[in-house]
Every structure is written in structure tokens, then in C-alpha cells.
């Protein structure tokens, strides 16, 4: 325990040097070091160490692998871990190229976790479902291909709620992932494995997918940075579809810069995805070095809207307090912060569950046992379908298929699917208006911090309600960045709380800039979970 920071039992954290509030709010334990150094980009420092030959890619990979081996029994964040020889071979290859003075990509030596609903050609991809147990795709998803081309090393496939349907990873067909901050708690979901893996530094960055908050909510629960890009920014090719009009591949990192660099690596038009945007991808990465933090008001003039409806009843007081603290922090940085109202906000949840379930009922039709995956033994065709799917899908997936099938059925379509689409249009418009008047909108990423494993497993409505903060953003197709901004009581040392920043479509650049400055100026908060607190590297 020596030499590590103990997150305090106060409800939120404020930057020390900017805040006018009493310093005592950020109580430090006696043992804590004086250092308040903020999160730094692991990707940039890896690059620096590799190119200056301070360390080899093989050494780096080995250190991640050994930490992974050590922590994995507690966390179970991976459904499949790459063969360590193969990982080390890739690293050694990079070392050879570096030694030979060759150019290596910006992700050279970066160990990446990939959510298991994203296809990888050389390892199993199950989507967390029994129906695809043992399935090995014929191809790499575009995002994975790009990561590999830029030198990234895929270290394994992370756990998730089956096909992304869930908020805890408890709906995985194979295992439940634990939260590194308190292993009795859920890491969030559905990208819980990817969030936990980054939080516990089992990998440098990871890919998740976000249909209704599946990157942002686990980022909040696990105290890491999660980025949900604009719909169309990243190719969905190779992402097992849950709800096609909402799904995006997103990024996890332990710093804003890392998520930005990863996003840059995987962004851009893909001729294999007709919904991917042809917009140019700005160089998100270059700005992280150049931001002048010496300026006293680096975000002067930035208009920030706090979404009133997200700080209402049903949201934990500690979370509200942390978000209000983050708002004050932004004010200190020069932002003009106002409270705004999105009257359509509460409509998002029912609309989301109708649309997502409807699309999923269609998208999951292909898992029929005919061409791949588990096939039931049956006497005739209907049993073949029925049994393969009955045995292959878990209860949460079945429930959503049933809901979606109902919502699309003749006679119900207008009342459900069509109406939900109309709500979606209203939500999109109200966000547009709010983002015309504000540069970014902020809210919590979830109404609470991580809860106990099993706590909501029998209460799907309570679990669905937890998505209230995030689903509207998917319905509107907007980008959102979640980054840790404080703590609430819980676990051994407190539980992290994530701040959600929502930007205008394709304006990830602004979110990353604001997020980076916020993170770099947030003092005395290190979001390193107790599970690895003895690891001196952190």
C-alpha cells in the first residue's frame, strides 16, 4: 500500500491549484506522495522509449503480459488471450525494424485489447455468445486491421455482455468480469472487459463498442477514459451488429490523449461500410503536446451546457456532486457554464430500447446454426433453427429479440418502431439546438458508480434505467467523451465517477482538446485502481 494514492472518501475532486474551494476537500492520506502528476499518454511515452531505445517492444509486451497473467484471475476481463509467443514475436519484429532504422507506425508496440464482438481473423470472436463459441472469423474488422497496420499488437479479446446487450458483463455467456476498483462490483458494460483491462493496465488501450453507452458507462465505472465517436466516424465493418443505426466502435485509454490517438488510428471512410463518413479525419493526436497549460484560462470562451435533466432525481447525490465539481473546474478553466434543458431527454430510454431491440431482432437472425457457430441436432428445419437459437442465446438476448420482433410486427410497427423513430428525430433536433448554443454539453456518464455483481441481475428495468445518461447520444449519433472526474464512496478506496462531454457531430477534436485540458489540470486525482496499486509503474 505504500507509495500509492488513496482516493479520498469525499464525494468529488477538484483541481487544487485552480479551485477557490478549501484544499481540505481533497484530503490526501498521510502516506500519499506529494506528486499530483496527471494521467499521461502511454502511447506517446511508449513511442518515445522505443525510438530512443530505452526499452524494447518485447520488454514492453512482456511487462503487459505478466501483469495480465497476474490480474486476470481476479478480473476475468479477457475471453481469449493471445498466445504470448505470438505477441512476443510481433514485438520482436518491431524491435528489428526499429533497430534497422525503419519507420514504425504510431501504434508500434502498443498492446491493444479488442472487444470480442469485433472480428479478428487469427483468434476466436464469440460476441460473448454461446452461439458463436469457438467461431474464428475469416477476416479482421477494419478497425483491427488498421491497428495492426499501424504497429499495434492485439493481446486478446475482451469480455462483454452477449452481443453488447447489457450493462454489466453479467450477460456474457462465458464469465463475469470484475471491476478493478472493487472486484465485488461490475465493471459496467457491455464493454466491461475492455474497460477493466485498461483500468488494470492489462493493455495500453482497447476497443469497445457503444450502442447505448457500452463504452461510456464502463469507462465511468472503471475510472478510465472512454470515447464514443460520431456515428460514421469509424467503420463498423467486422463489428457484430447489435443495432446497426446506433452501433459505433469506441476507444478506451488511461488518458484522453491515448483515446484520441487510438481514434485517429481507426477513423476514416471504409468502402466496406456504406454508413462510414467520407469526412476528413483531423489529426486529433497532434494537439495533445501543444496545448498551453500555462495559460490561466486555456478554455476561455468555451460554452458548456450542463444538461439539467441528468442531474435530477434518480441520480446518486455523489455523482451529482462530482459532476457539479467538474463543471466548476471547467469554469475555472475559462468556460462559461450554464444549465440547459433537453425536454426530450426522458424519451430517449424507451425509444432506444424499442429501436435497438427491433434492429437486434433482425441482426441476430443470421445466427441460425446453418453456416457457422453452434448447430443443434434436429430432425427437421424448424427444430434446427429453434434449438440452435434456444441453446445458443442467453436470456437477455432472447428478451431483446422478442421485444424487437414484437415492435416490428404487423399492427405494432406504427405504435412502436415508427413512433420511436419519430422520437429519435425530436431528440436529434433538440441536441442540434443545444449544440448550436453550446460548444459541449456535460452530464454524468451513469446515474451511479459501479454497483455490486448480481445487484441488478434480476431487475432488468433498473439496469435499463442506468442507460438514461448515454442512450440519447447514440440516438442523435453524436460523439461523447467520458473521463474520470472524481470519486464516490464505495469499495476499499472509493469508486470513480465519469464525466460525459457531448460534442457536435464529427467534432471529436473539440471534445479531446477540452478533455485533455480538464484531465491535465485535475489535481490530486490518480485513477489507478487498488488492484495494481503496488505496481510502481503507476
Amino acid at each position, binding site marked *: 500500500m505504500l507509495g500509492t494514492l488513496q482516493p479520498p472518501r469525499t464525494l468529488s475532486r477538484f483541481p487544487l491549484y485552480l479551485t477557490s474551494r478549501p484544499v481540505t476537500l481533497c484530503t490526501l492520506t498521510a502516506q500519499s506522495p506529494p506528486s499530483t502528476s496527471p494521467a499521461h499518454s502511454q502511447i506517446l511515452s511508449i513511442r518515445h522509449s522505443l525510438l530512443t531505445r530505452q526499452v524494447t517492444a518485447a520488454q514492453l509486451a512482456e511487462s503487459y503480459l505478466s501483469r495480465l497473467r497476474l490480474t486476470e484471475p481476479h478480473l476475468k476481463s479477457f475471453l481469449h488471450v493471445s498466445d504470448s509467443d505470438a505477441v512476443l514475436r510481433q514485438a520482436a519484429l518491431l524491435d528489428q525494424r526499429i533497430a534497422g532504422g525503419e519507420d514504425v507506425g504510431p501504434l508500434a508496440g502498443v498492446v491493444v485489447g479488442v472487444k470480442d464482438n*469485433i472480428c479478428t481473423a487469427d483468434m476466436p470472436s464469440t460476441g460473448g455468445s454461446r452461439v458463436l463459441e469457438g467461431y474464428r*472469423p475469416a477476416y479482421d474488422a477494419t478497425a483491427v486491421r488498421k491497428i495492426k497496420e499501424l504497429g499495434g499488437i492485439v493481446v486478446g479479446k475482451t469480455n462483454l455482455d452477449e452481443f453488447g446487450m447489457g450493462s454489466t458483463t453479467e450477460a456474457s455467456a462465458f464469465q463475469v468480469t470484475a471491476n478493478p476498483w472493487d472486484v465485488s462490483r461490475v465493471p459496467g458494460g457491455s464493454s466491461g472487459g475492455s474497460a477493466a483491462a485498461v483500468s488494470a493496465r492489462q493493455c495500453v488501450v482497447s476497443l469497445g463498442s457503444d450502442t447505448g453507452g457500452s463504452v461510456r458507462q464502463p469507462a465511468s465505472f472503471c475510472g478510465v477514459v472512454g470515447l464514443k465517436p460520431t456515428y460514421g466516424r469509424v467503420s463498423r465493418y*467486422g463489428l457484430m451488429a447489435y443495432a*446497426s443505426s446506433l452501433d459505433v466502435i469506441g476507444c478506451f485509454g488511461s488518458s484522453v490523449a491515448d483515446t484520441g490517438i487510438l481514434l485517429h488510428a481507426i477513423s476514416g471512410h471504409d*468502402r466496406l461500410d456504406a454508413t462510414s463518413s467520407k469526412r476528413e479525419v483531423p489529426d486529433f493526436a497532434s494537439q495533445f503536446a501543444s496545448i498551453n497549460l500555462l495559460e490561466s484560462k486555456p478554455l476561455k470562451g468555451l460554452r458548456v451546457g450542463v444538461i439539467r435533466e441528468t442531474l435530477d432525481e434518480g441520480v446518486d447525490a455523489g455523482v451529482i456532486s462530482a459532476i457539479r465539481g467538474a463543471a466548476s473546474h471547467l469554469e475555472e478553466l475559462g468556460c462559461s457554464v450554464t444549465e440547459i434543458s433537453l425536454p426530450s431527454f426522458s424519451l430517449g430510454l424507451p425509444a432506444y430500447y424499442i429501436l435497438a431491440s427491433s434492429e437486434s431482432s433482425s441482426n441476430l*437472425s443470421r445466427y*441460425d446454426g446453418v453456416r457457422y457457430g453452434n448447430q443443434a441436432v434436429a430432425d427437421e*428445419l424448424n427444430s434446427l433453427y429453434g434449438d440452435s437459437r434456444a441453446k445458443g442465446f442467453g436470456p437477455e438476448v432472447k428478451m431483446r429479440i422478442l421485444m424487437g420482433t414484437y415492435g416490428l410486427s404487423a399492427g405494432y410497427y406504427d405504435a412502436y418502431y415508427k413512433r420511436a423513430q419519430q422520437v429519435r428525430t425530436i431528440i436529434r433536433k433538440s441536441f442540434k439546438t443545444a449544440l448550436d448554443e453550446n460548444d459541449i454539453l456535460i452530464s454524468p456518464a451513469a446515474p451511479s458508480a459501479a454497483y455490486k455483481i448480481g445487484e441488478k441481475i434480476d431487475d432488468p428495468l433498473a439496469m435499463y434505467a442506468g442507460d438514461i445518461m448515454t442512450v440519447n447520444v447514440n440516438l442523435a449519433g453524436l460523439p461523447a467523451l467520458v473521463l474520470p472526474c472524481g470519486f464516490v464512496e464505495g469499495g476499499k478506496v472509493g469508486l470513480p465517477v465519469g464525466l460525459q462531454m457531448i460534442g457536435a457531430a464529427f467534432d471529436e477534436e473539440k471534445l479531446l482538446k477540452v478533455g485533455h485540458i480538464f484531465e491535465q489540470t485535475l489535481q490530486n486525482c490518480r485513477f489507478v485502481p487498488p488492484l495494481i496499486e503496488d505496481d510502481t509503474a503507476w
Partner: protein
Amino acid sequence: MMASTIFRSIQNHPLLLYQTALFRRKNGVFYCTMKSTEAQTATQEKQKPPLPKIMKQTKTSDKFSKDYEAVIGIETHVQLNTLTKAFCGCPYNYGSPPNTSVCPICMGLPGALPVLNSKVIELAVKVGLALNSKLSLNSKFDRKQYFYPDLPKGYQISQFDVPIASGGYIDLDLPVEFGGGHRRFGITRVHMEEDAGKLLHSENGSYSQVDLNRAGVPLLEIVSEPDMRTGIEAAEYAAELQRLVRYLGVSNGNMQEGSLRCDVNVSVRPIGQAQFGTKVEIKNLNSFSSVSRAIDFEISRQVLLHSQGQGDQITQETRLWEEGAQKTVTMRKKEGLADYRYFPEPDLPGVILTKEYVNSILDSLPELPEVKRRRYEKMGLSMQDVLFLANDVNVAEFFDATIAKGADVKLAANWIMGDIAAYMKNEKLTINEIKLIPQELAELIASIKGGTISGKIGKEILFELLAKGGTVKGLIKEKDLVQIVDPVEIEKIVDKVLSENPKQLEQYRGGKTKLQGYFAGQVMKLSKGKANPGLLNKILLEKLNAQS
């Protein structure tokens, strides 16, 4: 990847289960017939010998049929001849070994996404315009959902409430041998969709295999208004659609390969009744004649039931045309309306057509069959000739090119419909495969008309040109075939023949004037066929009758 996917566990209960399972799919008729790929048309088919009367009921119902009227509508699926499939880069070649033209997208692998081949839009717009339809400048794709092993994604990408084209009509002329007459049949809609794969069933029926080569191949579904009243009208409608897509070059329209498939809806009602009768759908129609015969059979069946007061026994069902037995049999009864749970395809952006785009395609359309027929008619050709020439786009183009070189219209038509067509038929060649080119046919016709060669020599040259090519002038020169039109020269030959046949000359002059033909033949033979027949006969007669 998988060379062939097998699902072993489907047991094949020979009669009932197997059939119902096999044909559960709405659009699913499996075309396995392997006949000659020779282009066939409704008109040509009619030259086949009439099929034996199979059913007694046809005769019985004949006397009632005048009291009833049939109402027929057709859904046609046309396979578009794009280089690659509708939503992926796989090529499609009919008859390739199973699962050799597949990829993650058309196999419906997890994570794969469709991307529209823009050529599909272009061809759909062409057909929409050619059918005089209204194009939707903003249309979209939808998912039509049902489970079947040949449907890899569990849904078919199709168009539901906003088809790319709606309304419209098609004009056609009924064949003369069926009384002729012009018809205009309404088109309800044209929409784009993807084809499904095929199931291949093992001989003992213990398992079935899935071939996904055809999965994702672009189709146009063309739905007609219920405007047809007889089997012939329906068959001619289908034949005209085939003609249209071939003229447009959007499909090979081959029914045997399944590139053009017709599902027919037939109902019968007492004449004068406004309300439609209960409709029956007929599938498995692999030729125009089966379309015609299946409908006529079905009309008779329904009329008979009506006339016996058993009209209520006509239920809404899908019936299968059995080519061998020449009858329709129940395939499946409708179990209420199928719910395909259509919703907009979220993986594909909307289909937006600009007016400029539509206009550019409109400008590029070729002359269509109806316009061509009207033009030929105005040129003075008989309807028989018009229908023959305009039936096949390549024949029509050959004819047009020939007359563009100045050939006489009627003569050109006669040559094409006569000796050239006979040659093509004997040699099993298409007009594009013969060696004769339109310019030479025009030259040939001109040479005969101008008297350079005789019609008989012309025929000889024609077969030479058909088989080996070359030019008329070259052949005439090479074979020294120029007609002898010099009277002096012909007179010499006549004199020679007369002097060599004194006996016959005597007989002729003794009154056996029929011998004129004999002399003419001898002269022609001696001139190696080159003597101008008119001159020959004139001089010969003069000489024969000279000293009597």
C-alpha cells in the same frame, strides 16, 4: 473457406415435411431444370407441336367459360447482369461450382456489411423508365425477414413501401396466329432486391446442402396490374418483359437459368362482377408456354368449380405447375398473411436520384421493342414480319443495320426471316455468331436487284457468307459469278444448246412446248447459272419459235 455447407440434421421426409420446408420461402421456387440455353420466346414456342390434351375438365368447363372471366397478375423477378453482386464484390456466373463465388458479405458472416453496387440503381432506373414508370427520387432499402437456409442473413434486402419505380405500363402485340391485337398492361411497381442462394438436396434425402453463389445477386421484382385475361396474354406479357430487358441489356432474361422467373396470380369471376375472385398463386413456371398452359389449366379448374357451385372451394393458396402432368397442384395453403416485419435497412443509406442522373439514363436508352415495332409497321412490313424482326434485339439490330445500308426493306426482311433464320436454326447459331454482316447482306440484295447476279447465285453466295464471311464483291469476282446480261453471249449459248439437242427441238416444234423448261435448264447449266433468267427466256423463246 467452406467449399460446401452441409446441414446434416435435416431429415428428408419424402412427401410432406420435405416439400413444405423446401417451399416455405415466398419467392422460393428452385429452378433446377437444365435445358438448352437457346433463347426462346413465346412466339417461337408456339411453333412447337401442341401438347396433348391432358385434362377432361378442360372440355367440360369450355361450355361454362364464356360466363366467366379470368383475372391474371404476374410478379416477375429479373436477374440483373451486373459484373458483381448487389452488395459485395463477388462475381456471379451461372453454373459455377457451389460456394466458389462467396465472401463474408454474401455469406452473412458476423460483422459483414452490405455496400450497394451503383450499377444496380442504373439498371433499375433503365427498366423503370422503359416501363413508363414514375421513379422515386428518394427511395430506400428495407429488410424482409424470414428464416430459410438459403437466406444467409435471415433477411432479404429488398424495397418495401417506397419502390424505386411505381406505376407504368408495357405495350405489346399479340401474335397473329392468336388473333393478333395490341395490348397495354399496367405495371404496379418495380423494386430492387437481392437473390437468395440455392439448396441442393442429396439423392437419398438425408441431408441438404446450401450453395450461396446466387445469394446477393441483384434482382428486379416487376409487379403487373391484374390486367391479363388469358394464358396467352400472360405469356406474351412475360415475353415482352424478356424482350425489354434484353433490349436494355440489363439481363439475359433466360428462364431456364432462372434469370427471369414468373409467379402468376389467377382468379376467376362471373362476367360482369366487379369484385375479384379468390386468387391462387402459381409457381414453377420455367417457360412462356408453361406460363400460358398453367394459367389456362388453372382457369379451367376454377371455372369448373364455379360452374358446379363449388366456388368456395377455391382457396387462397400457392399451387405448383407440374410440367409432366400438365396440371397445377396445391403446394401450400396460405396460413394467414405472412409477416415479414419489414423495416428500413440501417446498413444502407437512402437511394437518392437526381433529375440529371435520370435524364442522362433516359438519353442513353436504346429504341425499345414497342417503338421498333411501330416503326417497322410504318415501313410497310406485315405484322408477322414486324413481330419476327423485333422479337430478338440482335435480329432487329441486324435488320436495322442492313436497311441503313440502303437495302430494300421487304427484301431484307425476307432474307433474314427466310434463309438466314433457317441457317441459324440448323447451325444453332445466333445472329451475332454468323459470319455475314449487315453491310454484305445489303450488298447482296443490291447485286441481285441490280442484276449483277441472279437470285439463285445470290443464295449460293449467302450461304458462303453465312459460313465463311467475306464480301459479296469478292466472292463474285473470285468465283466469276457475274451474271451474263449480254444478249449476244446468251444467244450463243442458246444456239449451242439448240444445235446439240435437235431431237428435243423437233419435239418442241412439234407441239411439246413443255420442253421449254428443259432448254432453259440446259442453257443455265451451260452458263454455269450466270445467265440472266429474263434474257435467257426471252432469247430462248424467240429462237425456239423462230422457224416454225
